[in-house]
């Protein structure tokens, strides 16, 4: 697995990395999908989480929340902030104004009866004005941080605020989730995802997982997965070759088996 660690990257360099396409995409769909799904289904125990993602690797497959999920400014900032970043990038609006508009749009959606119970829109519409304002500022801080990393309208066009990749594992209740905040353009674009704090020990594994899930969702592996930790000023770049994708599959099975019966560590065999 080829891993590069950088302290900072200029936005144009990052954009070039997201848009460059080295080599052919590994044939993930036919060679990795079925053995991975079979092993995941066999590895899951009764306490298995309903989603597996890079976060699961940091927490050995533990459930994400110790208490029932509740919306908060922190929980909502990426959802609102990503939309705000997309809007700000497209219209040259400031991220704060874009975040305010997004909060208003979500509230309006709920008031018109278009949001389901428990959705972010519903929570925002019922929250006091001060809470909505706090959510807008948190989201704007998130969006600003994202837009300081990349130049969406630079020489290399980027898609900001792309949806996460989701893949359902057949015969289970489990979803694989690949997080991504920015995608490059071109025949084999890379993906960028942003996280808080400093990279954990499993950061490179998590990037491989994000790349693998994106590959499973689209049928084509991204050229590379780039993780940015703006709070730490660190960027990790993983080239998503066959070895990296196989490694991701092993990590996912390991995280799944950590919550249930143990599986063999060499569960997925695929030549790089």
């Amino acid at each position: 697995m080829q891993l590069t660690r950088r302290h900072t990257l200029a936005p144009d360099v990052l954009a070039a990395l997201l848009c460059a396409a080295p080599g052919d995409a590994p044939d993930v769909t036919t060679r990795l999908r079925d053995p991975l799904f079979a092993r995941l289904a066999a590895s899951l125990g009764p306490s298995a989480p309903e989603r597996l993602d890079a976060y699961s690797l940091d927490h050995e497959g533990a459930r994400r929340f110790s208490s029932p999920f509740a919306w908060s400014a922190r929980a909502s900032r990426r959802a609102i902030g990503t939309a705000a970043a997309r809007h700000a990038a497209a219209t040259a609006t400031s991220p704060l104004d874009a975040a305010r508009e997004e909060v208003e749009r979500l509230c309006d959606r709920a008031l018109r009866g278009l949001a389901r119970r428990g959705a972010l829109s519903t929570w925002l519409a019922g929250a006091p004005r001060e809470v909505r304002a706090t959510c807008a500022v948190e989201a704007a801080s998130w969006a600003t941080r994202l837009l300081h990393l990349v130049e969406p309208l630079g020489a290399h066009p980027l898609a900001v605020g792309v949806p996460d990749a989701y893949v359902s594992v057949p015969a289970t209740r489990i979803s694989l989730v690949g997080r991504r905040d920015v995608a490059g353009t071109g025949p084999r674009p890379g993906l960028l995802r942003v996280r808080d704090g400093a990279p954990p020990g499993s950061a490179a594994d998590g990037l491989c997982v994000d790349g693998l899930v994106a590959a499973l969702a689209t049928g084509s592996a991204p050229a590379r997965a780039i993780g940015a930790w703006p709070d730490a000023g660190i960027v990790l770049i993983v080239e998503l070759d066959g070895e990296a994708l196989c490694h991701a599959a092993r990590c996912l099975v390991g995280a799944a088996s950590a919550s249930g019966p143990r599986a063999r560590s060499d569960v997925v065999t695929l030549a790089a």
Partner: protein
Amino acid sequence: MTTAVLAPTDDLVAALRGTAALRPDVDRGLAGGLRAWLEDGLFERLGDVGPAPVVVTSRSVADLPTSERSSARLRGALVASLLRLHVAGCPLEDPYAAAVAATCASGRDGDLAVALAELDADEAARLAAEVAAHHAVLSERLGSLPARWSPRCGARLAIPLAGGAVVLRGTVDLALGAPGGSRACVCLLDVTTSRHVDGTATALSYLALLETLRAGEPPLRVASLSTATGEARVCDVTPVLLAGAVEAVLGSLAGTRCS
């Protein structure tokens, strides 16, 4: 280190942002040199890395007193929420109620939300009066913050060094300006509900160092606003200031050794 102490009548935001034409060019080589200096110094002081990271904070570097009083922590969290609401331009009729609502919905510091709920009427009234006074100072000193300055709140910086054996942590209450230009324009503001003390300037230089290591370029200025007194201190970020911060970090680790 030159620290300007602003009187309560001076315009803090104007002092922080300064005149655009007079801002210095960005020295992009500085961050790498500071990081190397820190890494070398840490290796000399800490030797082999241990399993548990040594966490360095503003308080440990600047030798600032740590308040154990829950009321002080509550006050600080509520004023931090008021800062967010001020940045959002949210008009407040009852600062305390607004700050409590925002803090409880923040998704951070769940223990503080519990502590707020457990306050009796007298404690809540006392805290409300304090928070209202701090809010008045905050509003007066900061004025209106245009959205085009890219305000962002509550960034929790965490810079790992020595292979993760040491983590420099700090919170930037408010950052203004975008990095990446040819001239420095990022300004950092630390809001404290305590009075300024001797170590405040060192704490500010430490925050400037964290931002330099994080962004790869030094910020323009760093400031501290005491909502207890209305006093503000503003420092221009220079190589000398950052060098002082490196020495302060290394000095704070003297005698520390990873096990």
